[in-house]
């Protein structure tokens, strides 16, 4: 009886640990990204899932570890005057009951600086990420950053939704492995229903979404 109870307690504890571990994982991503430490950023992605991918705004989808390395490349020399700080807040994290997969949706405010181009601005969006546990460690499986706006400090998002020349839909990043899946920044002339919606309670345990997620992890590799 005691071992049954322990087992039950263990599953409750593991669930809480998973939530915290995913928050820490995502936070590490934000810190290393802002430090431009791409070696560290890449190390947070799944190593054994061919369908691992990342997408930022209208960058297109970068697939596989090779794709991840193109989106987050090491730089020979540090860029002067550049500082990006993309944060992730207000997470809704759903962990599958087997504790092996998870999804997290976050708001993401931030700042951008490209001093030599005379650019300072606000960069807002949302993360829609999938996570997977590999050898007991949580990793990012799919990272999607949906852009709300990237606007200069002086103008604001009503007047400028995306600063020209900023972003990763250009060389040396371009071309991505697959086209952008969704990109609909704020627009002053339309109704703004900024996806993604937060994941519903228990949504990762519907057989469809679990399978779909694993399928995309296995079959999403570039062909």
């Amino acid at each position, binding site marked *: 009886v005691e071992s049954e109870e322990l087992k039950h307690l263990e599953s409750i504890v593991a669930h809480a640990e998973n939530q915290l571990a995913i928050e820490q994982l995502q*936070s*590490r991503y934000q810190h*290393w990204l*802002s430090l431009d430490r791409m070696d560290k950023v890449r190390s947070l992605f799944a190593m054994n899932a061919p369908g691992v991918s990342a997408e930022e705004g209208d960058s297109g989808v970068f697939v596989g570890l090779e794709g991840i390395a193109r989106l987050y490349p090491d730089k020979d020399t*540090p*860029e002067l*005057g550049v500082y990006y*700080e993309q944060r992730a807040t207000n997470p809704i994290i759903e962990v599958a009951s087997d504790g092996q997969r998870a999804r997290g949706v976050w708001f993401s405010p931030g700042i951008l600086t490209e001093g030599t181009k005379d650019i300072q601005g606000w960069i807002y969006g949302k993360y829609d990420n999938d996570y997977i546990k590999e050898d007991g460690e949580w990793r990012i499986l799919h990272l999607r950053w949906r852009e709300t706006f990237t606007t200069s400090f002086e103008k604001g998002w009503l007047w400028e939704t995306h600063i020209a020349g900023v972003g990763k839909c250009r060389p040396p990043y371009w071309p991505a492995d697959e086209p952008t899946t969704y990109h609909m920044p704020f627009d002053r002339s339309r109704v703004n229903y900024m996806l993604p919606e937060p994941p519903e309670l228990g949504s990762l345990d519907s057989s469809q979404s679990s399978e779909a997620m694993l399928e995309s992890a296995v079959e999403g590799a570039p062909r």
Partner: protein
Amino acid sequence: MSGREELMARIRRIQDINAIRNLHNRYLYFLSMDSSRVMELWATKTPGATFEAGNSGVYEGPESISHFFMEPEARRLPGAYYEFLADNAVIEISDDGQVAKEVSFSPGITTVWPEHAGSQNKLQAWCSGKYDIDYVKEDGEWRIWQLRWRTTFQTPFDKGWLHQQDISSMRTPPYYPSESGSLTTCYQPVNRWGVNYMLPEPPEPGSVRGRSTP
């Protein structure tokens, strides 16, 4: 370690992380509302307590730290308002559950209005920085031990960090000099012409495991 003991250790770690998050958030609420109360959150029994913000220099020991937080009457004048947040905290805890380290981003706002001694008048500003905090447990309660706020920028509302990186120096009375203090350890706001490697780095997993109470 038995199954039950191991489970208890895991539960304690979850409790520790949640307690540290609440402690830091409480600090932020006090800072924004009545900064003199932050001393309720500081370590008083562990030697080596410090506070440092921007280029303030290092305030050493509870008495010196409280001097910083009690001093600025300007904070309570009509029109003054400060709000510093913290997010994306990366927290690492020692195996014995007595020591912890946190790094987080810290956006905020500052409002000085209108006739505050020693500062520019009519100032509203965007702030951005990073927290680098060490915690200790005293009598079973987590406390702030060493807190550092590293400036990314504090810029006037209408200028931006490209054109002005800080609104004023902390090395001016009434803040500075602190009698028992030492020099600023790191002050490197964002620089539009330079390499911006904004320290601190987040603590690596397990990097605080072997540490024990100072």
